[in-house]
């Protein structure tokens, strides 16, 4: 009976096939939503079955599996899909190709389910490629727009590259380990991890899988496809930012035991993740286009996710991608509704955040900056250290999470401040809201992170932390946290309270250079243009 759950990836394809023959336009979303609800129900039942019986469901000759990872991700993707379909019902009504949109949406969800539930590298490769082509057709949905088609080409080139790297990694895996079955491979890798392994081929395989994941998850330098997909319909943006980019993290989780054997790959993941997180967060603040800003925000978050993987916190990466997905999908869907509402009203409707925090106060003294700095730097750190001291040592099994949390919080608040301009206000409410957000994030991360870790990997989770040799000590994390937060807040307040001199003093050249570098997104397109003209 429970094997029926393994049919989940095929349900969206059946829906797509049915939609092809539905004549009435208004029936298209209804059929799609009704049948997609079945996936949600099946997913929830599957999760209940896996959790309550403490077992996994395997079928189709071991090609598909509904395990702990699927138990978390399938209901999440299914519910997300349902919300997006419901949203698109009205949002896409006037667009040409209404039916095409729902059919493509079903294909992309099928690819995601297949990817999550695959227990075989070949099935994973098929899902990986299905995702690429579905994404291409969805991003270029507005086929009449040259910009949309051009942007879709960027998406496709990157994803095709990811596909090839992924295929090479699979070929080498089969040649080295003699199997495509992930369950068999994972056992083999776990067994091998007990002895010292120093095989360059394993490193190559790990690196190829990491590169493939980086390309799909828009990690720098393969990030450019994500911020430049603003022409895609809003529901597609929501799918991309909440679903598609996460597949890199899902892949690395499926190959967690392989990465045990190659700590160097984990270290590389940490470094590229760190680099992406910092640079994308900076770019997010500098770019003028709101959708691109959101795109860079996602790139930054994916950077954190890869960082977490690099630190051996695989389960935390899963938690991160779910939380980020919900947050980003909400933002995108909300932005779409807002635009639609704004077309009917002369003024934008007031947002809750606006009403809560917006109080324009002109009396801002530069001396206050340091008070704020102290407040924002010291309070969270004191709170954190206090918790650390009060609670037992086992509560924080990975000190590195402090750094990740600090980064995440910093970006979140920066995004918040940038969007709603609350930094101009010196309201105490803003301060309390931001500090409390940090505490909430801290607790949810720790509680759910640890619970998830036990659920997904049990005691094996400790092996991952041991393998990630770049583990950050508490002192190092503490110092980094303080430095990063201070710098972040200094820049934030400087940006808003800086006194612009009217004298003809020369601007700081280095600062301008840095700003110009960020504003032009690392001169990426200029370089491309030069190459196109054949000047280099």
């Amino acid at each position, binding site marked *: 009976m429970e094997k029926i759950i393994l049919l989940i990836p095929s349900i969206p394809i059946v829906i797509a096939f049915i939609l092809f023959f539905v004549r009435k336009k208004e029936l298209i979303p209804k059929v799609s939503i009704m049948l997609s609800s079945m996936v949600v129900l099946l997913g929830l039942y599957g999760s209940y079955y896996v959790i309550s019986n403490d077992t996994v469901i395997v079928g189709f000759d071991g090609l598909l599996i509904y395990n702990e990872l699927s138990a978390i991700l399938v209901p999440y993707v299914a519910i997300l899909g349902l919300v997006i379909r419901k949203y698109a019902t009205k949002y896409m009504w006037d667009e040409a*190709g209404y039916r095409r949109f729902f059919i493509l949406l079903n294909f992309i969800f099928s690819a995601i389910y297949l990817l999550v539930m695959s227990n075989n590298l070949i099935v994973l490769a*098929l899902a990986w*490629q299905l995702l690429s082509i579905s994404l291409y057709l969805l991003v*270029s949905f507005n*086929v*009449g727009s040259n910009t949309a088609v051009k942007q879709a080409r960027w998406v496709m080139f990157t994803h*095709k590259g990811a*596909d090839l790297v992924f*295929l090479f990694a699979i070929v080498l895996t089969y040649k080295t380990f003699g199997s495509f079955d992930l369950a068999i491979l994972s056992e083999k890798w776990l067994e091998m991890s007990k002895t010292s392994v120093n095989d360059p081929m394993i490193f190559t395989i790990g690196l190829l899988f990491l590169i493939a994941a980086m390309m799909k998850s828009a990690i720098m330098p393969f990030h450019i496809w994500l911020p430049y997909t603003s022409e895609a319909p809003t529901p597609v943006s929501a799918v991309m930012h909440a679903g598609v980019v996460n597949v890199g993290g899902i892949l690395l989780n499926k190959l967690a035991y392989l990465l045990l054997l190659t700590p160097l790959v984990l270290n590389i993941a940490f470094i590229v993740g760190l680099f992406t997180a910092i640079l994308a967060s900076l770019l997010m603040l500098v770019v003028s286009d709101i959708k691109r800003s959101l795109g860079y925000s996602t790139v930054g978050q994916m950077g954190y996710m890869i960082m977490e993987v690099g630190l051996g916190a695989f389960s935390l990466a899963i938690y991160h991608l779910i939380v980020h997905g919900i947050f980003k999908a909400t933002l995108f869907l909300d932005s779409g509704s807002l635009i639609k509402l704004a077309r009917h009203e002369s003024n934008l409707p007031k947002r809750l955040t606006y009403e809560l925090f917006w109080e324009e106060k002109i009396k801002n003294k530069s001396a206050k900056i340091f008070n704020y700095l102290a407040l924002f730097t010291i309070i969270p750190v004191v709170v954190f250290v206090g918790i650390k001291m009060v609670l037992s040592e086992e509560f924080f099994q990975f000190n590195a999470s402090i750094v990740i949390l600090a980064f995440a919080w910093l970006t979140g608040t920066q995004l918040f401040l940038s969007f709603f301009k609350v930094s101009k206000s010196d309201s105490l409410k803003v301060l309390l809201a931001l500090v409390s957000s940090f505490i909430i994030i801290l607790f949810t991360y720790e509680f759910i992170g640890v619970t998830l870790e036990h659920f997904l990997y049990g005691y094996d989770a400790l092996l991952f932390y041991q393998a990630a040799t770049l583990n950050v000590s508490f002192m190092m994390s503490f110092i980094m946290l303080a430095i990063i937060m201070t710098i972040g807040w200094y820049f934030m307040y400087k940006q808003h309270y800086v006194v612009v001199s009217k004298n003809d003093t020369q601007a700081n050249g280095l600062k301008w250079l840095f700003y110009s570098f960020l504003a032009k997104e690392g001169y990426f397109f200029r370089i491309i243009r030069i190459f196109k003209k054949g000047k280099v």
Partner: protein
Amino acid sequence: MISDIVLFILAAGVPYYIFLEKGTKFHGKYIFLLSAFLLLSAIVLSLFVENEHRTSLVWISFFSALFSIYKATKTTNFYKLGYYLIFVNAPFFILFEDAGAMYSLSLLVSLIGLYLIAKFYDKNYGSANYHNITGTTLVRPYIGTFLTFYLIALALYPPFPNSLFFLSHIFKSEPNLVWYIVVTTLFFGNFFLAMRVMRETLFGRPNPNIHYVHMNSKDKAIHFFIIMLLFILSGFGFKEMLL
């Protein structure tokens, strides 16, 4: 040795279209039909004749494929694109010996679909040239859908058999330098060519100077049949790859 060379020529290992294109008698349509027939002969022959891949032949067909990719990027004619694609994929047939036959058969079926689209364009728009016949997806969804299917199959994406046989062979073979070069070239070559057609005729704003013609039921049924055939081949592809 002789059988290898015969198969090599039949499977489009050398760009013999260069000579045919120079003649005035051979229209693109006939070159396509000839190359497709020869490829089919190679597929049938490979079932009876022992085929052993020789690196020198793989290299020749590889350079021929590169040249054909270049030629394909310069054309906007469906017929020409059709036979260029046969030459582009020849190294695969030669490199993977008998196993390449199923891949070539899938290629041939997809190209028959493309050929019928070319015939449709030829009949209704005066030639098989797709230049300036933009936005087909928007104005003629059926043609758009069929063409999208064929192009996705040619671009080596699942669930179409071209991709499945391609993956199946590369997973089961022993990689070496020639292997990496051929696989990478075909993987990207087919993709670029298919995407180019998508961009130029499926996408874009519909051209107001063109009267877009509907596909009749008979044509729809034929294309539907070809797509079903592709899916049947996909079934074999899945079987070969997963079981």
